[in-house]
């Protein structure tokens, strides 16, 4: 929006922003923070301590302390019989790991990145995933394949692919992907304890990030269920599904969207009859949209100005709909009808700007995040963010329940768009909740190109917060055309 307006907003509604932030970040009263790296390390440590059959295998997991230091200290603690450095032979050591699992041990095989898992993919799929089925239950394979997955920073095409969709399509595998430290601990422990082959997709860029964890999470018996997604943030306008790093982006989107404005000035140059129409619409908004208890408090028309105390979202919903007279996106039948009325409102917007401060204000150039904030503040979208946690099995019931509540869906993933996770989630929602959808499902994914190296191209090849914001707006209003696709 406008600088002064923003300041005023911040001043007035700081109290509203702050709770939004802390709600995002705290899980209980404990304030201990650990990095994802520490979470993974402690999970491995505890599971190895609890079960002597668990052992680690991979390149540089031992003396190097782990290529990304995830296995730091474990060689010293458990010795070279349980923490095994392998030569650079993925097919060989993965096969050995699977064979050891056939015989009842519980290997945790590390791939330095999942790009290298392609060298061993026959063993993951044909030797591990399918064995229990082909042997009718005789040969179970309690193995975990773990490592960083997806794009890092500037590592180029051969080191940046996301394998979630590939592994998740294979029956017999379980595929997990944590976002924060709690996820990392709980899901890795669940994976190690699980008697089936689990592909555990971490993210290099998240390793160093800290997240608060409760005492319950730090307890050695802590475990998360496989197959359950987590609603990271509740909302009501649009569902955003994501996993791993993209959960962080989606939450940022929410943060930007949740700002309230106390007052909005609406003026109309329309005739009296139309003013009455606006009034009735505003009353309907009052009854139809009450966000977080902030209802429409006063409606009045003074000369050409109506002063409304309302959650920003509601008023801007009205504004934009009245402005974009031929746009349809509408939740209530009543509002739909009025959209067809042509009312001139753009001047009223600028009048409003002037009225606030008497100065003419301009948009500030800023980072995409706050610019996105500005855009989304106007729209007042409350997105519900689902952290998938489990890619296979996919928690279809949580996703569908959320879509039935919000009626709109955006899927976010870093990987290639074709045949990706978004496609599966979209299909699932179309199959089970079609009549609840008010807008087409949108997929945000990486660009359909091998990952480029140059910083600007790389940035374009991976979803950014603005992309999610744009999609959220499109899903709610359809006022912004789809970005051009290659």
């Amino acid at each position, binding site marked *: 929006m406008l600088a002064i307006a923003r300041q005023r907003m911040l001043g007035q509604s700081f109290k509203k922003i702050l709770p939004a932030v802390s709600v995002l970040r705290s899980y209980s009263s404990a304030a201990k923070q650990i990095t994802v790296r520490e979470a993974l390390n402690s999970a491995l440590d505890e599971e190895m301590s609890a079960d002597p059959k668990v*052992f680690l295998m991979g390149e540089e997991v031992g003396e190097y302390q782990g290529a990304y230091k995830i296995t730091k200290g474990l060689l010293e603690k458990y010795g070279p019989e349980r923490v*095994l450095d392998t*030569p650079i032979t993925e097919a*060989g*050591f993965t096969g*050995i790991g699977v064979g050891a699992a056939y*015989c009842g041990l519980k290997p945790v095989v590390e791939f330095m990145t999942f790009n290298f898992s392609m060298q061993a993919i026959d063993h993951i799929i044909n030797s591990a995933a399918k064995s229990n089925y082909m*042997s009718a239950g005789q040969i179970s394979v309690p193995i975990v394949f773990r490592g960083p997955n997806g794009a890092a920073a500037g590592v180029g095409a051969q080191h940046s692919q996301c394998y979630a969709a590939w592994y998740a399509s294979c029956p017999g595998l379980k595929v997990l992907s944590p976002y924060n430290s709690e996820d990392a601990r709980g899901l890795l422990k669940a994976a190690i304890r699980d*008697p089936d082959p689990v592909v555990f997709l971490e993210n290099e860029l998240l390793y160093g990030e800290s997240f608060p964890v409760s005492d319950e999470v730090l307890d050695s018996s802590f475990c998360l269920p496989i197959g359950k997604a987590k609603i990271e943030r509740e909302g009501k306008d649009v569902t955003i599904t994501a996993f791993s790093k993209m959960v962080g982006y989606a939450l940022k989107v929410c943060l930007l969207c949740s700002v309230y404005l106390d007052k909005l000035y609406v003026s109309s140059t329309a005739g009296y009859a139309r003013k009455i129409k606006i009034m009735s619409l505003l009353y309907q908004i009052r009854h139809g949209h009450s966000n977080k208890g902030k209802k429409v408090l006063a409606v009045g028309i003074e000369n050409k100005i109506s002063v409304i105390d309302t959650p920003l979202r509601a008023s801007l919903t009205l504004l934009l709909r009245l402005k974009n007279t031929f746009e349809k996106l509408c939740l209530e039948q009543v509002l739909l009808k009025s959209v067809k009325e042509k009312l001139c409102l753009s001047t009223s917007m600028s009048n409003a700007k002037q009225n606030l401060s008497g100065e003419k204000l301009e948009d500030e150039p800023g980072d995409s995040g706050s610019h996105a904030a500005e855009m989304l503040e106007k729209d007042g979208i409350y997105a519900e963010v689902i952290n998938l946690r489990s890619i296979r099995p996919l928690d279809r019931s949580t996703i569908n329940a959320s879509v039935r509540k919000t009626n709109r869906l955006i899927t976010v993933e870093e990987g290639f768009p074709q045949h990706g996770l978004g496609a599966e989630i979209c299909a699932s929602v179309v199959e089970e909740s079609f009549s609840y959808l008010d807008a087409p499902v949108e997929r945000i994914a990486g660009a359909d190109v091998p990952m480029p190296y140059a910083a600007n191209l790389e940035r374009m090849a991976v979803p950014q917060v603005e992309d999610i914001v744009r999609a959220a707006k499109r899903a709610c209003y359809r006022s912004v055309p789809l970005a051009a696709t290659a």
Partner: protein
Amino acid sequence: MALSRLASSSSSSSSRSADLLKPLCSAISLRRPISTDTTPITVETSVPFTSHQCDTPSRSVQTNAKELLTFFRDMALMRRMEIAADSLYKAKLIRGFCHLYDGQEAVAVGMEAAITKKDCIITAYRDHCTFVARGGTLLEVFAELMGRQAGCSRGKGGSMHFYKKDSNFYGGHGIVGAQVPLGCGLAFAQKYSKDEAVTFALYGDGAANQGQLFEALNISALWDLPAILVCENNHYGMGTAEWRASKSPAYYKRGDYAPGLKVDGMDALAVKQACTFAKEHALKNGPIILEMDTYRYHGHSMSDPGSTYRTRDEITGVRQERDPVERIRKLILSHDLATEKELKDIEKEIRKEVDDAIAQAKENPLPESSELFTNVYAKGLGVEMSFH
């Protein structure tokens, strides 16, 4: 038996032992119990062993009547079973892949005689006879081949996916060469758990060039795993002769730093001797390679006549000169451990056993429809639903 031997002594080419046994036989008019006789007999292997980076075991093999007759019975059973499978395939009761092992029986049988059920075996897709050697029943074989409930994998695996975990038989593997790292993994687990047992990972001359084999061998040698890599060299990888596939077809030498032994794979006693030697070696010194020089009479699979890349003369030649069942039969006869008639009776019995098993398997039902979704996971979650 004594009379027939006297009558045919002039034409028989039996060894000296027949002459020595003659007076004994004539003295005993009652049939002695042959199948449980464990008096040691020493037999020389057909050819000496050749080695790479290790000593060779002795050519003299200790055996006894019981063992030889068990060899005969088991190999004749396997032979009959595979030939019956051929007919079933042609009758379209077996579908998909069917890779037959007839000609190679000595490897399965000789190996089993040298080891215990604590030792693990993993092989590739030519696994019917190895499964039987590990204790699998004929019914389980035929039912699995025909995709029925009584099959060892309840009809869900097929010809290439026979398993018997309680005998430490880990399959049955469809991807060429993949079973070798898996076998080294089994050996790893045995060492980790201090089992004092070994793993035999079998593969063919076609698989011998697989990179993952060398990767696994490297790790096994580094970590001193009790892994025995057994190359069943039947000289043809599908339709490609070994000299066309391998720059160096001396597979027992391909381990380089790992010792190797070349064995006549058509001689069950030589196989047994080599496996005993290898087990001892692997428990002390880590991986060793055994190359079994063997031969398959059938083509690669049922869709391969087996004659486009080799001559019929070659096949009949091997059948006449080196057939493993015939070798044991001659051995038994020459040592007077049984009469020809007794051996023929055993074969008749086997034929009946096989026919009965086939009849039983044919009666057996196909799996229930609900079995489509079972065993995908050991611990299912009830979250995935079938698609309507």
